[in-house]
């Protein structure tokens, strides 16, 4: 039986030459992401913006979104966001902190009362402004602490250039993911924080696999110029990279299509994350080693620690 190969055998591709193209492009995309984040911003879910979310399903037939919008707009509870959601009979209603004198609780009850005859409440969530502020803090803290911890781990396991390269690549992936959320307007909630952190994890995983190989090659070919050495290493791991990315992609595709509305934004963000992480491990992190002056003359900066199982 002929086995499937997505990457050609004995690939010899000059990945490092692309750094003159990939760096300006990534820099531009990163800047665009930051600008988008500051101007357009993300579509924060109630976890981070505070407010109330009601998810309802029509007791029979399809949801009449126009009629619902008309009904809830006349309740005097501020701006109501009414959207179709998942199946045609589902609808989501979102609103921020109601006007003074009405608690979020009473507001929710009013909406339910107004629509209760034709719609069942499937989910009700309401997050106070103080809690949402704390969730933002917690989320940011989580991302920052995990990056620092991973930096420390890599510093310990590899030479400093590797750790710096890995962190730059990770930050790049993070920025582009933020940009992705700004462009797509996918809801950003606490599950999205989980997605971002998983992207950080996946990105580092990709980077570590490439760096591991570079370090191994450094010990094997002490005289090879750094450019060629990195190219050889990247070429050696490309079949694995493509294979793994495809597998995870397939698993995520199943989540996007069948996993339900609640985790769709999570899965979509992850898909983007895999794409960016694979790209950055090859085109951002590896060339960074050249820029950071990794020398391959056999007396490189510090002897790499011995790896388990290595002879």
């Amino acid at each position, binding site marked *: 039986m002929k086995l499937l190969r997505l990457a050609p055998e004995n690939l010899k591709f000059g990945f490092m030459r692309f750094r003159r193209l990939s760096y300006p492009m990534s820099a531009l995309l990163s800047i665009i992401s930051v600008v988008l984040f500051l101007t357009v911003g993300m579509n924060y879910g109630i976890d981070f913006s505070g407010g109330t979310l009601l998810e309802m399903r029509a007791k029979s037939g399809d949801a009449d979104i126009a009629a619902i919008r008309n009904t809830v707009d006349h309740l005097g509870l501020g701006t109501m966001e009414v959207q179709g959601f998942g199946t045609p009979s589902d609808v989501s209603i979102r609103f921020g902190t109601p006007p003074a004198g009405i608690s979020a609780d009473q507001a929710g009850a009013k909406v339910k009362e107004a629509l209760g005859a034709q719609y069942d409440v499937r989910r*009700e969530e309401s997050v106070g402004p103080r809690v949402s502020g704390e969730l933002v803090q917690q989320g940011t803290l989580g991302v920052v602490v995990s990056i620092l*911890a991973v930096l420390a781990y890599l510093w310990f396991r590899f030479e400093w250039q590797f750790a710096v390269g890995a962190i730059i690549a990770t930050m790049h992936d993070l920025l582009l993911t933020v940009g992705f959320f700004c462009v797509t307007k996918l809801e950003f909630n606490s599950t999205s924080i*989980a997605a971002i952190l998983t992207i950080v994890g996946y990105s580092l*995983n990709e980077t570590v696999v490439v760096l591991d*190989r570079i370090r191994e090659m450094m010990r094997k070919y002490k005289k090879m110029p750094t450019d060629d050495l990195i190219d050889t290493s990247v070429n*050696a791991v490309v079949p694995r990279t493509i294979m793994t990315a495809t597998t995870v992609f397939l698993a995520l595709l199943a989540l996007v299509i069948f996993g339900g509305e609640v985790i769709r934004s999570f899965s979509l963000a*992850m898909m983007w994350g895999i794409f960016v992480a694979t790209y950055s491990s090859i085109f951002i992190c590896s060339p960074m080693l050249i820029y950071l002056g990794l020398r391959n003359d056999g007396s490189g900066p510090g002897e790499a620690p011995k790896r388990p199982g290595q002879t």
Partner: protein
Amino acid sequence: MQRYAPWKIISIFALILAAFLLIIPSLVGKDSVTRLQSHLPSWVPARQIVLGLDLQGGAHLLLEIDRTDVLKSMVLNLRDQVRGVLTEEKVRPPAVTQITRGWQARVPDPDQRARVLSKLNALAAPTGGLAAGGGSPTYDVKDVGDGSIQVTVTDAGVNDRVRHAIAPSIEVLKRRVDALGTTEPNVQQQGDDRILVEVPGLQDTTQLKELLQGTAKMVFRLVAQPGADPSEYDVLPSTEGGTVNVEKSVMVDGEDLIDAQPSIGQDGNPVINFKFNIRGGQKFAAVTADNVGRQFAVVLDNKVITYPVIRTPILGGSGEISGHFTSESANNLAIQLRAGALPAKLSIVEERTVGPGLGEDSINAGKKAAYVGAALVVIYMLITYGIFGVFANIALAIHISFIFASFVLLGSTLTLPGIAGIVMTIGMAVDANVLIYERIREENHAGRSIIASLDAGFTRAFATIVDSNATMMVVALILLFLGSGPVKGFAWSLIFGIMTSIITAVTMTRMMIALWYAYARPKKLPI
């Protein structure tokens, strides 16, 4: 490839068997579990995976001790204390005026002022001493010059009160939620001043919220007589409309209640029958005997529920409150009175309710995604690696059952993000196998013998697998410690997934390949 000792093979099979035993109860229906339990030896923990509220439906409420309310009641309390000190020192008149967070008293005489100040300062020290109060005084006492003294409640004082209110609040909430009769409600502290209440299966939260929020502080106070000094009574709103003047002193406290039950009164409306303990009963009898013909007010959370005339002394320590109750509100109030009063008002700061229908849909969607995702990965591995793909897929199946077994064993909660995490670790587990296989191919292409390629593939890839999984583990652990709810669920499945993927992808695949090699003796590597 080394030969595998039989004891190694046996212990690996024992591990797999144990995992299957752990997950079987979760695969059968809820009612079959008890039946299953009777067929299994008692040491097998026939438990099902604990599903998060997002999957089984239910209500999740985060309550916070209302600091402004705590401050308000502390300030009110402080008034009596300051007046007490002034009276003791014979300051005439013992009048205090309210300022922000406290009270101001005029004591023009300097000697008297000094004595009052020292007494108030003694009052300000935290009662629990250095350990409990953190060393900062509860009240701030200062001489403002013009013969006046100001006493205000400090932030440290409020913090201290909030800290002490948490544990009794949790007890009271537990008793109230238990009265609902739902299965396995969860009430626990979160942070310094919050309490998490989770009630699986409950969808309509209106009653729950009503039940949780009232402090249910009930006292019996006499209605002030016409022409009484306004400083001796409070003007309280009545549930019947208007206001009632009630005396400041409390006849009987709700703490002396031992029972409260809703029932139907003589006029056919819902009432609450209550019963005092001996002390409360005696006090109630004494006060009612002394005040026949006057009205007494039943005050709940500073609202007058009813204020009947005392016709005859109420002996025997029990009575009936009739207010404008519905049968539901009478029932709620009876539960609250039985459970005791909350030390402070609680406000709902976060609420999440998932209907059982949605929970079921989510499970089904998660299952479907997991099946489809797994099928895609399995097929992809098969067409890429052939027989080696079969080994990888078997390892993958074991990997997934290990994750579920970990959930059962540690009693962790499986949430929707948790299912997403499992799908994610499927990818990570496959990555470990891919790293190994690609390395084997590479070594083989470089001209090594089959056996040398296999060995080199496993040993070399192992270092990379450890590095990449360790970085992932760092991220997962941080998620677990810093994350809340959904993020935590995701972190658990990542952690379980990473741990088991190293075992299954490396050890088990290696064993399968070793056994296959010993059996098939291939002349050429089939990948």
